């Protein structure tokens, strides 16, 4: 059994087989060879896995992100943030980080943020004299915040896999996202102050007012999402649907920079992306069910508890495992594969699964830009046309900045859980 549910999936994964096929093959082999359960359970579980209203938020948020990624929304956001930042060392770098976080709060898509904000900011950073290596690192690393910031798709998937409340997870993600943003901004300011890189324009209330008016419609999406969910007006799924209509309506009817054809194109690419994700969600839930039926998570938990390791060392080991996995695999697949194994373990250790969801997301977020294979590295290389060696050298300090943030988030649960207490209780 361990061969079929452990060795076979790992082998097929390493050989580059599609993840849905890897999971489905392991389940089919386990059912046919070792278990005497009628095969219709395969169909029932796959169907049941996707037969969930919460999961609808995934295509809706992706659609919002796709629509927001077109047109001038990103530039309006950048102008708004830039007007608010004012004259501080590394002002443009701070604008980049904050714009990326704000874009993530609209779309929940990390790679889209790297591509969209990166395209808007790279020429400005270069013109302002920022070293190319620093800019490459900054633009590649900044998108990792979006994995934690609501409406993060990986957090939504974690909520489904771990059977945790999505609004609680989103509330828990706010402070860690702000912490990571603050750490990145602090590093940018320190670096620019040390290297004498120029400050931006002095703060002017009039300019901020003008930028706010120009960007007000672009800023509506996060207000709808946060205000709707935590104001008790919408469920996350409804907030995502309303955000979709808003994200289509603003560039279509107000800015008049998108046509109906563009909206339909976005819907088509969202549909395929949804298929890529939800097929894995369905197969991973089936795989998780097989693991649970065979009591594998319980056995793993029992074995690890038997080692009598202190909590901090177990969390450290889990962080190292997740960092490694994250640099080879996309966050959604990693969450779906590892949640059935890790969540029972951390629950047994007394870690709040909502807090663990945030730890999970931050690790996988770092994996997104971590050498050698973080996917945002390839996005920056492809979309921003940055040389790979420059990106690799540029991201090293940012990895350390994020690791500091990860350590705080891991060992100070209040950073994650305070948001839950404030917004939910």
């Amino acid at each position: 059994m361990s061969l079929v549910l452990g060795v076979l999936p790992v082998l097929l994964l390493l050989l580059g087989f599609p993840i849905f096929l890897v999971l489905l093959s392991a389940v089919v082999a386990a059912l046919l060879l070792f278990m005497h359960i009628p095969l219709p359970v395969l169909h029932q579980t796959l169907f049941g896995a996707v037969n969930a209203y919460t999961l609808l938020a995934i295509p809706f948020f992706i659609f919002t992100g796709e629509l927001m990624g077109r047109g001038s929304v990103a530039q309006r956001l950048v102008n708004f943030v830039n007007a608010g930042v004012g004259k501080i060392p590394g002002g443009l770098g701070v604008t980049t980080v904050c714009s990326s976080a704000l874009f993530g709060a609209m779309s929940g898509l990390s790679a889209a943020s790297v591509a969209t904000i990166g395209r808007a900011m790279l020429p400005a950073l270069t013109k302002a004299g920022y070293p190319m290596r620093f800019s490459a690192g900054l633009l590649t690393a900044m998108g990792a915040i979006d994995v934690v910031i609501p409406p993060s798709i990986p957090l939504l998937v974690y909520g489904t896999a771990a059977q945790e409340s999505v609004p609680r997870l989103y509330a828990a993600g706010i402070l860690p996202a702000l912490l990571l943003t603050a750490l990145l901004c602090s590093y940018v300011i320190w670096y620019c102050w040390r290297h004498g890189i120029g400050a931006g324009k002095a703060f002017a209330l009039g300019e901020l007012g003008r930028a706010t008016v120009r960007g007000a419609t672009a800023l509506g999406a996060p207000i709808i999402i946060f205000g709707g969910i935590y104001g008790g007006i919408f469920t996350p799924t409804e907030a995502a649907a309303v955000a979709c209509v808003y994200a289509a309506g603003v560039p279509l009817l107000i800015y008049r920079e998108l046509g109906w054809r563009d909206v339909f194109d976005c819907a088509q690419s969202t549909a395929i992306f949804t298929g890529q994700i939800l097929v894995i969600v369905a197969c991973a839930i089936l795989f998780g069910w097989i693991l649970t039926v065979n009591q594998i998570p319980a056995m793993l938990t029992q074995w690890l508890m038997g080692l009598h390791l202190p909590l901090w060392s177990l969390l450290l080991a889990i962080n190292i495992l997740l960092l490694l996995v994250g640099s080879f695999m996309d966050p959604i697949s990693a969450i779906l594969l590892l949640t059935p194994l890790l969540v029972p373990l951390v629950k047994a250790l007394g870690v709040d699964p909502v807090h663990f969801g945030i730890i999970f997301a931050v690790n996988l977020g770092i994996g997104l830009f971590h050498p050698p294979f973080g996917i945002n590295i390839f996005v920056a290389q492809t979309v921003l046309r940055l040389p790979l060696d420059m990106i690799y050298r540029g991201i090293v300090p940012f990895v350390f900045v994020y690791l500091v943030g990860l350590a705080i988030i891991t060992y100070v649960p209040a950073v994650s859980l305070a948001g839950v207490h404030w917004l939910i209780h």
Partner: protein
Amino acid sequence: MGNLRPQLVLDAVATAFSRLLGAALIVAVLVNVINVISRYGFNHALTGADELQIYLMIGLAFLGGLVAHIRRRHLRMDVLTRHFPPRIVRLLASVEALLGIAVCGLMTWVSWTYTIRIFRLGSHSENAHIPMWMPHSVLAISFTLMTLVGLIRLFVRDEMPIAPPSEEATS
């Protein structure tokens, strides 16, 4: 030319399904928003709206998965295989097609059997009264076509490369 035709057919199938699913997504969004407006504006929720959206999403999941299968855009960990020599890559592609045929073929049989049983039972969803064989048949159709895609890939030389990582490849 003989090798080109199946690929063209697959492309046409993928394009047709992606248009259909794009439209389904827009319908799901509109139904959701109309339901919200109806609930808050007129104190009346649309009966069966949630069921309709969920079944549209099941279509997005499995038929979207089929489009990803045809276009070779399924998420995979290709860190190692990117460095393999072309001969090994071709061999692995054949093994992948074989495994896909075996697993999806079994799922085709299981899903059709289940769908036909649901059809004979005549069960409907609780609120929207949608015949339940319809959403269940999505899995059957998807696995049937995935099996066919595998057979075509196995017997026809397929030149479509595996999609490289892109900005939409991950969130």
